[in-house]
Every structure is written in structure tokens, then in C-alpha cells.
């Protein structure tokens, strides 16, 4: 039934978005294949996070189309929940629920959205917490966890709906440099398992080593994209060169 010409997991076609008179996204075209790790880099305010938020309808686009696993976000018959269970999202500020234990943070969506039983949801949550190396912290509350641990719980929470694609919105930007590693390690592991990932990141090392595709954005447009090697080592656009010379 889905006559997708390309086998894209996520595609953006001519996406436009403005906040008031400020045009945040100008005609964005992007295609992410299953298993791909797409890293979006660029200066602050270039529209990177907005791209992610358009994918799961946290932001409604003004024009163009976003397709996720065959579902079109502009299609009013596509329910929010059907879109969002396909898309896991990890936030810069973790956004864990402070009144719930790590375990309950992870079981909430499987129980409320998938209707799993408490036992099923807990089994799934414990296995995911184990995957991010925090099985023994299941009973801890967010305030009792370090930033890196909180973000790993948040990753487990986002994985709990078994999404088709994971969005990482500057997942390590709020962390002290010495603990970004533990979060990046989890992300590397997901990438190694061929999880489809779209990562807005300032971690150039991660983008270069783990990314299969790198997108450089500036001023609401994609300036340059391609395999990490070509973008990082042989950038074509002047703006890409200028940006990379500052951050590398």
C-alpha cells in the first residue's frame, strides 16, 4: 500500500516552518534510510532542533511533507499516538519525570500507550535499563541520579515503545564533558544495532565516527550534507568550512 519510491524511514520534503515572522526552516529536504545515523550539526538557532520536532509533530510544519515509516505527518487521519510510538525522542534536559522512579519513567508509556500489563512493562523496562547499564538504579528517583545516568534512563524510556527511529536533541549538551562519554557509548551501541537515529549534536567526534550521514545547517537551510568523511574532511561550502574551523 505504501508506494514509497525510496525506502526512507524518515523523509522531509520541502519542509517549511516559521515562528511568527521568523522563518526557522526553509525548504528542508532530507532522507534517512533504515539503520542510518544522521547527524545534524550547525550553529545555534540554525533550525536543527526544529527539524526533530517536526518529525513527531511536537511542531506542526507550515509547508511540505514529513513521512515517518510511511506515515505522513500532515495527514489528519494519522493519529498523534501512531506517529509518536514510532519515534523515540531524547531531550537535552533529559525531562525525566521527577516524581517517578527510573523504572516507572520507563514503564509509563508501555502501560499507557501500548496497554501492556504492569509485569510486561516492568520486564521490558528492566531489560532496557540493563541495556543502558542502569538495572541496579531501577528504584532510584531522577534526583538521586547523575546527569549521565538520567540521560541514559531517558534513552531507555524513549526506547520503551520500540520506536522505528530515535531522535536525539543535543543529548549530551547539558552534561559535564567528562560524563558525556557514558551517554555517547549508549548511542554508539544503538547505532551498532542499526537503530535508525537522527542526532542533533555538537559532538563532532561522534558525528564523524558514528554518523553515516552528516548534515550541516545554517540559517534554516541545509548548507551541505554527505558522508562524514566528505563533510568533515572536504567541505565544499564556505559556511561549512568556517563553522568546522571553529569547532574542530
Amino acid at each position, binding site marked *: 500500500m505504501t508506494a514509497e519510491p525510496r525506502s526512507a524511514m524518515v523523509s522531509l520534503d520541502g519542509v517549511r516552518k516559521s515562528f511568527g515572522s521568523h522563518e526557522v526552516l526553509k525548504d528542508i529536504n532530507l532522507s534517512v534510510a533504515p539503520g542510518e545515523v544522521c547527524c545534524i550539526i550547525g550553529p545555534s538557532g540554525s533550525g536543527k532542533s526544529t527539524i526533530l520536532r517536526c518529525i*513527531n509533530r*511536537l511542531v506542526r510544519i507550515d509547508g511540505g511533507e514529513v513521512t515517518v515509516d510511511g506515515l505522513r505527518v500532515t495527514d489528519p487521519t494519522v493519529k*498523534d*499516538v501512531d506517529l*509518536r*510510538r514510532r*519515534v*523515540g*525522542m531524547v*531531550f537535552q*534536559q533529559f*525531562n*525525566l*519525570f*521527577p*516524581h517517578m522512579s527510573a523504572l516507572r519513567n520507563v514503564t*509509563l*508509556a508501555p502501560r*499507557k*500507550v501500548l496497554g501492556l500489563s504492569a509485569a510486561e512493562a516492568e520486564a521490558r523496562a528492566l531489560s532496557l535499563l540493563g541495556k543502558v547499564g542502569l538495572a541496579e538504579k531501577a528504584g532510584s528517583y531522577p534526583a538521586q541520579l547523575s546527569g549521565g545516568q538520567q540521560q541514559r534512563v*531517558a534513552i531507555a*524510556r*524513549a526506547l*520503551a*515503545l520500540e520506536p522505528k527511529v530515535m531522535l536525539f536533541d543535543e543529548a549530551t549538551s547539558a552534561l559535564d564533558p567528562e560524563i558525556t562519554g557514558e551517554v555517547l557509548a549508549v548511542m554508539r551501541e544503538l547505532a551498532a544495532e542499526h537503530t535508525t537515529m537522527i542526532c542533533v549534536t555538537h559532538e563532532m567526534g561522534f558525528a564523524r565516527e558514528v554518523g553515516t550521514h552528516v548534515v550541516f545547517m545554517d540559517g534554516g537551510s541545509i548548507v551541505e550534507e554527505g558522508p562524514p568523511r566528505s563533510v568533515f574532511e572536504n567541505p565544499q561550502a564556505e559556511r561549512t568550512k568556517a563553522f568546522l574551523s571553529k569547532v574542530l
Partner: protein
Amino acid sequence: MNAYLHALPALLGRGLLATVTISVASMLIALVGGFGIGLLRALRNPLVDAAAIAYVEILRGIPLLVLMFFVCFGLPQLGIGIDAAPAAIVALGLWGAANGAEIVRGALVSIPRGQSEAGVALGLGRIAVLRSIVLPQALRRTVAPFMSLFTAIVESSSLAALIGVKEILETVRVDIENDATLWTPLLLTALALYFAINFPVSLASQRLERKLG
């Protein structure tokens, strides 16, 4: 001394009972109404919002005493008969509900936006986000302001004296009119009674806050 002891039974009996009844009933209206209106506003329906804002702004913008006069003396002229004590409860309750609604709304908006966003991104609906994520966190932040509102209600219940309800202040006033030497002892007693009602409210609030924290 004799006159004072003679005046005490009415004060501690009927007067205290009337003050407590009016206060507690008004608190319940303020609590239920406040949560009702505050939660309705969380649904962000423009029509509901407009009605709630109008209610809150009007009720908070008029003097409580004038509202009480209106309910007690104005409504009967419009064909809605109401006794003095119920009128005091209605006025205090409506006023309390308006203030309670602002407390609840304020607590809800004080929860960082990232919290509801995380819930939405997980596929939860608006009601589920409110019930499972935002409200449990907001609840604790309503305790202290509701405590302030409750003590304000107890204190304001003395306005009911002015529409003739025989609560603490009105009971004292009648006795003082008969015997001016009772001014100091009876008013001190009245003050002690108001404190005796309010202090447990304050203690309960602290305990509840700890429990929800």
C-alpha cells in the same frame, strides 16, 4: 468576670460553631471549585478559558464584603431567597474558588514545559499527560498557597457578622454592646479562637507538603 463567664457559652458554642461551619464549607467550595476551574483551563479551550478568566477576574476584583451583601440582600430581591449563613458561605466560597483557580493554574504552569513535552513525545494524550505527569508535580505546589487561602477564609468569615450571622465576632459584638467592660476579654478570646482554628490548618498543610514532597 462574671459577665465574661456568662458570655462564654454562646461564644464557644454557637459562635464558634457558626464560624467553623462557614469556614469549612467555604474551604470545600474553594478547593473543589478551584481545582475544577484550574484544571478546565489546562484543557486550553478558548471558550472555557474566556469564561474561567471572566469568573476569576470579576470575583477577585470586587470586595468580598460587597459580594456578601449582594448575595445576602441582592439575590432575595431577584427572587432567590437565601439565609444569612448560607449567603456567607456562597460569597466566601465563590471568592475562594476564584483564588483557588489561580493557585491551581499557577501550579500547573510552573511545571517546566519539557515535562509535558516528554509525555507528549511518548505518545500520551493531553489528559494522560495532565494526570500522570503534570498534576502530581503541581499538587505539592498548591498546598502552601491553599493553606494561605484557607486561613484567609477563616479570617474573612468574620465579615459574616455584618450580614447578621451569629458567628464569633457577631456574638462578641452583641455582648460588648451590653457591657463595655467586656471589650478586651471577649476580643482577646475571639482572637484566640481564630488562632485555634487557623493553627491546625497550618500544621496540616506542613504535614501534607512533606508527604507530597
